[in-house]
Structures are given as C-alpha cells and as structure tokens.
C-alpha cells in the first residue's frame, strides 16, 4: 500500500514539475515513479514486494479477460443452438481463502466468469458452493477454479 501511495505522489510531482496537467502526462509520471521505486526497493524496507506486485496484477487482468471471453463464447454458443449441451449442477469448492475480504474477492471473481455462479459459503467458511453450467469435465473445472483462486490470492498476500 505504501508503495502505491509513493508511486502516485511521484507521478503527481512529475505532473507539477513538468507543468502539463493531462491524464497522459500523469501516466508517464507514474511509469517513471514506478521505475524509481524498483531501483530503490533493495534499500527501503517499506517497499518490500511492491515492484513484484504490479506485473502480477497485469498478468492477472490478462488471464481474467481471456477466461471471460472464452467462457462467454461457450455460453453464447449454447444459448444460440437449439439443443442444450449444458450440464448444470451445484458443486462444493474447498476454499483456501480465509479472511472475509479474500472470500468476497474470490466469490465475486467466480461469479464474474460466465458458466460459474457462487451461491453460498458454508457456515464454517471452508467451502464455497458454486452453480456451474458446464459440468462435463468436473475435474478440469475444479482445476481452473482453483487456479483462478490461487492467482487472485497472490495479489493480496
């Protein structure tokens, strides 16, 4: 968090000093600020882990968009063709997320990808019940959901 604030401050300083108050210039300032933070990270303890987080976030956004488009096309195909190819069902997914914040994030991400909808968390918060539209290959589905959870948790820890 301190890393992000410093990055924003450096970006604002760049905007003030260069005198060009546009969004694009702020972006340029943020990029330079990020490079500066990467360079001083070994010396400053408070920045520990910040530079490694940004590529992870970008990688996660790319991964998520890929999943989103892929799954949307699959649902679209099933809606448009007359016979039903889907095999819907409710499965229980064991959670590795522990805090409320993490569970909320994971459940929302699962709800956002088409084909899966999170229904409820068990009272002891160990299992997330998910309604899935395509249960042809349950192991594959569980594997991809676990991968998404793993990648999302990496962003917070």
């Amino acid at each position: 968090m301190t890393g992000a604030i410093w990055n924003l401050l450096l970006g604002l300083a760049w905007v003030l000093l260069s005198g060009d108050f546009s969004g694009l210039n702020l972006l340029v300032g943020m990029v330079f600020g990020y490079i500066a933070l990467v360079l001083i990270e070994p010396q400053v303890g408070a920045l520990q882990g910040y530079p490694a987080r940004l590529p992870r976030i970008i990688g996660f956004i790319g991964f998520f968009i890929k999943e989103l488009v892929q799954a949307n096309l699959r649902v679209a195909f099933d809606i448009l063709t007359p016979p039903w190819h889907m095999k819907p069902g409710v499965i229980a997914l064991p959670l590795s997320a522990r805090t409320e914040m993490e569970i909320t994030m994971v459940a929302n991400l699962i709800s956002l990808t088409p084909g899966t909808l999170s229904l409820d968390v068990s009272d002891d918060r160990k299992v997330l019940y998910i309604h899935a539209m395509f249960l042809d290959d349950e192991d594959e589905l569980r594997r991809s959901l676990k991968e998404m959870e793993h990648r999302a948790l990496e962003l917070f820890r």
Partner: protein
Amino acid sequence: MIEFIKGTLLITGALFVLLAAIGLLRLPDLLTRMHATTKAAALGVILIMLASAMHFAEVGIVARSFAIIVFILMTAPVAAHVIGRAGYFVGSRLWSGTVKDELRPNYDPLTHELKSGLETHENAKRHPRDTDPD
C-alpha cells in the same frame, strides 16, 4: 482503422446484450438465466463503454467510461449472487437436466444451517454467528 475498431466493439457489445436477452427467454431455470443475464450483459456494456471512450477520447469521458466499467465489475457479481442464492433457498426448482447438487444435502431448511461437508465431530457442533438474524 480506429473507426473499424470502434465499430467492432459497438457491434459485439450490442450482440452480447442481445444474447443476454435471448438467454433470459430460452434458458430453463433461474440459475442458468442468471448466468446469461449478468455476465453477457456486463461484457456487452463494457465493450460499448470502451468504444465510447475511444470515440470521444477526452479525459472526462474516458474517466467516466472506466468508472462505469469498474462499478459494473463490482456490482454485477454481487447482484447475481444475491438473486441466485435467494432463489435457490426459496426453493425455485432446478432444471431436469441438472446433473449434480452438492448443496442440498448439506443445508438444513429449519435452522438455515449450511454445512461444509468437511466437518469432523469436533467442529460439526453448531456455533451461531454474531451476525445471524435469528
């Protein structure tokens, strides 16, 4: 070139919204309908917003487009989850082709207790949450 990209974004966005509407009519039960409406519609609106941001290319409009995208990404899954959950527990019937339901055996309709199925004897005892209404 940029005209072409904008046009493609607008048309695919509109197609996804149309798809959500068709899905709402065609799909057989509540939960599968939630799949179609929330996600396809959200993707459609996101594509249209990207196109409008590219068309106007002004700071104010681009910022607003991205704010709309962020808020849709934040609210759509919550709404889908709440409607789907309420519908499920109120007892809306699942489609006859549903292959599996791992929730039903773990749910107690009298106490509204939802087990995880991973309990040992130790933690299978009921511990009411502070936030429970009853």
